[in-house]
């Protein structure tokens, strides 16, 4: 693992970073770039570079991972353009701009491309010191593809075993993060959560950062993603230790209800994203001081979100659920009737929990539940990004949970 390559990156990896995909013409005016900044967007992914856009992004301290900085491959499409020689040629011709954080180098590569990407990434760090390449790998949604008959997952990704896919990726491609996309409102919540678990486990094991692509858009134009659905995605990602999230999409690259329409006008998603990103940034200030140690599924009694039938094997897969657990100096953590994704974090002299309410991922109604724990330490709480006063009774603390809220609890 080339951890030393983290040094000298063009952006501050100690901050919680929020990105988005694509900013298409005609949404490249200064007004549009300011909208990004106002929505707490730190960077854009996959948008090709152009100098006017780069200047505007630089003015507003927004970074870009452009797709046209290096030869680019989408899954198996266009793979013949990938070579170390191609990277060398691109490096010779490269004209720098301070808004560029690194190239967007690939999306959802199949497993058999990992040796090639390993070579390419090794070459990259020598050719582009200080830059970070953005390589997004695929989610675990094989079942969807089989049912849809879209393509054979074996043909498309080189394996039907997602664990093998992740294992091989970290063995062969020396990056200091794992980035992948999984969009819960176009797949199963249970496999979405399982995907988090598999990637977060691998990140902890290998010391990589966890970057996560989530959806602000949706395939069904009549079902826009709500504010609570944004919260659900962001806070569950944080409970698994995500250090960066990327919202798909700002401009209408795929699906409906993106943040701006094809004319560059903001949609109803813009206000929601501003609200949730503001919350996340507030949480991120404190959250990034801690390191994620484990993640747990608390409660989930009678919930369908922690089990599914594997369409390949026919077996029922169940994620491990718990209640009444101890994590560090948090004792007897439990929920009355709720479902919570619970991240446990540590720093020197401090511990924290990220509580991501998960009873109602689809924002279908109202669920009132609570989480409780005991501790003899001093407790501080950020609830949806705002400081919440809390008093314990005989060392026991109870926090009411609203739909898809995120609660960051620290003890010192």
């Amino acid at each position, binding site marked *: 693992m080339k951890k030393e390559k983290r040094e000298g990156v063009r952006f501050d990896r100690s901050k919680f970073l929020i990105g988005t995909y694509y900013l298409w013409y005609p949404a490249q005016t200064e007004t549009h770039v300011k909208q990004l900044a106002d929505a707490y967007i730190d960077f854009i992914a996959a948008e090709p570079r152009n100098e006017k856009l780069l200047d505007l992004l630089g003015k507003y301290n927004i970074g870009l991972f452009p797709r046209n900085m290096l030869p680019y491959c989408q899954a198996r499409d266009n793979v013949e353009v990938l070579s170390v020689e191609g990277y060398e040629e691109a490096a010779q011709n490269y004209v720098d701009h301070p808004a560029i954080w690194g190239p967007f180098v690939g999306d959802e590569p199949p497993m058999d491309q990992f040796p090639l990407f390993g070579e390419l990434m090794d070459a990259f760090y020598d050719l582009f010191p200080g830059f970070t390449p953005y390589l997004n790998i695929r989610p675990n949604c094989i079942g969807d593809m089989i049912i849809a008959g879209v393509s054979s997952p074996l043909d498309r990704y080189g394996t039907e075993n997602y664990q093998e896919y992740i294992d091989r990726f970290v063995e062969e491609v020396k990056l200091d993060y794992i980035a992948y996309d999984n969009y819960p409102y176009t797949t199963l*919540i249970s496999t979405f959560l399982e995907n988090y678990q598999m990637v977060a486990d691998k990140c902890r094991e290998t010391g990589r950062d966890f970057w996560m692509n989530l959806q602000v858009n949706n*395939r069904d134009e009549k079902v826009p993603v709500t504010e609570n659905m944004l919260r659900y995605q962001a806070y569950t990602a944080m409970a698994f230790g995500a250090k960066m999230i990327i919202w798909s999409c700002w401009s209408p690259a795929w699906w409906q209800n993106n943040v701006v329409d094809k004319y560059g006008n903001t949609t109803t998603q813009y206000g929601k994203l501003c609200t949730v990103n503001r919350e996340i940034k507030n949480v991120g200030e404190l959250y990034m001081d801690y390191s994620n140690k484990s993640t747990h599924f608390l409660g989930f009694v*009678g919930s369908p979100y*922690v089990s*599914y039938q594997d369409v390949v094997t026919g077996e029922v897969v169940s994620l491990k659920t718990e209640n009444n657990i101890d994590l560090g100096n948090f004792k007897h953590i439990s929920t009355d009737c709720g479902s919570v994704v619970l991240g446990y974090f540590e720093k020197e002299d401090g511990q924290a929990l990220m509580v991501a309410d998960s009873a109602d991922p689809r924002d279908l*109604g109202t669920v009132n539940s609570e989480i409780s724990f005991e501790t003899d330490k001093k407790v501080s709480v950020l609830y949806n990004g705002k400081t919440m006063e809390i008093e314990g009774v005989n060392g026991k603390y109870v926090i009411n949970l609203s739909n898809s809220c995120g609660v960051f609890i620290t003890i010192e």
Partner: protein
Amino acid sequence: MKINNMEQRFDRSKFLIGTYYLSYYAQTEEHVQQLSDANIDFLVAEEYKEELLDLLFKHHIGIFPTGIVPLQRKMFFAYEHLPVKFYERAAEKYVDHPAIWGPFIGHKLNMINFPHYGELIDAANRLFVGQTPYLGLSSSNPEDIGVSETASIAVLGTYSYEEYIDEFVKNINLDYICFEHYTYVSSPAKAFENLEIVANKCRETGRDLWIALQVGNRDKEYYMNCVVTMQMLRFQAYTAMAFGAKSIIWSCWTKGWWDSNVLDEYGNTTKQYKKMCDINRELKVMAEPYMQYINKSTHFLGFSGTPYLTYTKKKAENNISLGDFRDISIDGGSAVLGFFEKEGGQALMIADSADPYDDGIVFANVTFETDKKVSVLKNGKMIKAELVDGKYIIPISQSCGVFVTIE
């Protein structure tokens, strides 16, 4: 109001399954045979065509056709645009056919038109003797327009679905309430709210409950959760039966609205066809005993930590007794529980509701005590209820429907 209980062309003592639309490209005998094989009893809103009527009659399928009486497409101010005399003229021209169960009158009425439709229904009852006019109501969530309060007023004429249903029964002399609710473009929480309001009114006024449910969906069959699965069909049908539904109407057989219907645009069966055959076969088996009973009440068992009771008046219960079913409880799941009675017998319809979206797998047990003899039908098959320490244990999962009778 006196309910009009005239002699009818179809057997209301049976649980009846209908569907919307059989378009021109799907009107061969083979297509009608497919309907019959899928246990479809009647068609709704397809145009009156003699050749089609002949085929339907041959295969013992009824129809509520359009084209008998004029329709008010825009439902505002029907009294101006659709006077009773139009129905009288239609009746003069009408050529009867034994496949016709009654004229399709309209759907998604705005409350403002209820008084006038009361007159139109009276005219239809008078002019088309022995037939049953088909009139469908909106859900509280008019999904084709939107979910805002403004949209609610535009479609329903009121913010209150309860008022909408109240006004309907005050004004319109039909012995059923037929409404549509499409859970997967609305939500299970709204489905339960609508079913609760309509079922309460049906019990209060002695009307039958008919409901249009969805086999199609707005999205094309591409990824998971977009096409309606067998489990999602079960969820809709069995929860409706737990509220005492006596007829369900699947939307749609051919292209009516949305996608992934039972037939594609060329008249070929889609993956939804086999699901229709399977679910309807199950429902018909369940309905044999079910239709002997009268629904008395409906309860929400479990539902701890779920959002599905957001809009219902009745809240979650656990450990309840209903008639000779004592100490009914559930261990972690969610079930809609209908209580039914007949002379000398009682029954429960248990509709597993832990996973309406077919997201995963939830196993739970419903338990109860009784001194009576217990019979259990689960998804259309007889099963033996396990008796442990004096309690009967019924395992439920994946939106199953269980009809338990005691005598």
